[in-house]
């Protein structure tokens, strides 16, 4: 039987952490795009569309991410596709991220005073022009800290993809544990690597919030 040194364990975990990073980036980018589309429908679309996107957001915020992963994994399979774990992981995480980002951004857009909408409408701007030139530039400033804060949730969310068999940091942790019988060390290291990924994001979210002085504007 081969012996694993501490360095072997750490190296394998760090190699697997690449996939956590890649998956987080893909989910966050994809979720951002889908979330922006949802946002446009949620606040400006037709009644039916507003209703649909609200339902979508409620559905994805009201069910466990794990179940969404299972449904993506087995649901895509119903179409006769052979679903690799990474595909199901990406699809589920993008849809999940989109729901949360759309809701966060909606709050930011709604924090913009109603007069801004009315003023831009009085200048003859259409909905998309209002969003592009008046609302979004202001909302963006409010949106940065909570969006960065949510990225932490995305990184942590990727841990669940290990359950449908995608080999990222958590799955690597389980595999290495099974090989080394050192769960305390391995899971401790896994936790520290996640911490190293998430903590800078959390901190920068806090700093941005303070810098942009959003939370205390009304005090």
């Amino acid at each position, binding site marked *: 039987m081969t012996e694993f040194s501490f360095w072997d364990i750490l190296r394998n975990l760090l190699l697997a952490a690449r996939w956590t990073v890649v998956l987080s980036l893909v989910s966050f980018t994809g979720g951002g795009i889908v979330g922006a589309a949802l946002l446009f429908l949620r606040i400006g679309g037709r009644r039916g569309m507003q209703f649909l996107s609200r339902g979508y957001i409620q559905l994805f915020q009201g069910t466990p991410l794990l179940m969404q992963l299972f449904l993506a994994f087995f649901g895509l399979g119903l179409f006769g596709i052979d679903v690799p774990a990474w595909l199901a992981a990406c699809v589920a995480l993008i849809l999940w991220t989109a729901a949360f980002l759309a809701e966060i951004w909606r709050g930011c857009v709604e924090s913009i005073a109603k007069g801004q909408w009315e003023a831009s409408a009085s200048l003859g701007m259409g909905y998309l022009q209002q969003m592009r030139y008046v609302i979004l530039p202001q909302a963006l400033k409010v949106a940065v800290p909570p969006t960065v804060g949510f990225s932490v949730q995305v990184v942590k969310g990727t841990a*669940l993809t290990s359950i449908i068999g995608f080999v990222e940091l*958590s799955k690597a942790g389980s595999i290495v544990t099974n090989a080394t019988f050192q769960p305390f060390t391995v899971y401790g290291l*896994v936790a520290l690597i996640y911490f190293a990924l998430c903590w800078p994001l959390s901190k920068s979210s806090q700093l941005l919030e303070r810098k942009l002085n959003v939370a205390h504007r009304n005090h």
Partner: protein
Amino acid sequence: MTYQFDFGWLIDSLPVLLKGIRITVQLILIGAVFGVALGIACAWVRALGPKWLKPVVATYVELIRNTPFLIQLFFIFFGLPSLGIRMSELTAANLAMIVNLGAYSCEIIRAGIQATPRGQFEAGASLAMTPFQTFWHVVLVPALQRIWPALSSQIVIVMLGSAVVSQIAAEDLTFAANFIQSRNFRAFETYFVSTLIYLALAILLRQLLAGLGWMLFPRKASR
């Protein structure tokens, strides 16, 4: 798509599902009560507690908030036995949920306490209350009232997150779903049904917490 949906298994599997629901509900009830209690204790430490304890609590909160629940669970269930601390799956699941919610609710409650005007503490002191009495009787309840919606959301998030405890073989709703789909080979339908149950539980829990907030914090207290 030629797949035929089949929900015929539902009747036979009902007892298993119900047991899973019961465990999930039990987990979140215990988790919420002790988790929020831990959160209050930690918020007290961070606001008024002894100086040496503050960095300890801050580290705990940051560590928990920046690592996935799954890893916390694995660490407790698989890692701690190396130190001689062994526990059953359900205990580990409960402990993980309490520790997790404790950290999040600490941050939430702390925000509520920070929003309390300084004068409230001074008013308490001028009535010869000890700092702890002021905290307990004067500061805490309005703070809780202020952050109740955020705290409720967090409890619902922890409930949804508890789906993961099936991974250490705690027999919650997800565990039941895994068990059922391994028998009927109807994975999609099984997970679909359990997803709907989770959705119903989330809505129910939200209503319950809203009602509880209504009872605990009558309107007149705020304005």
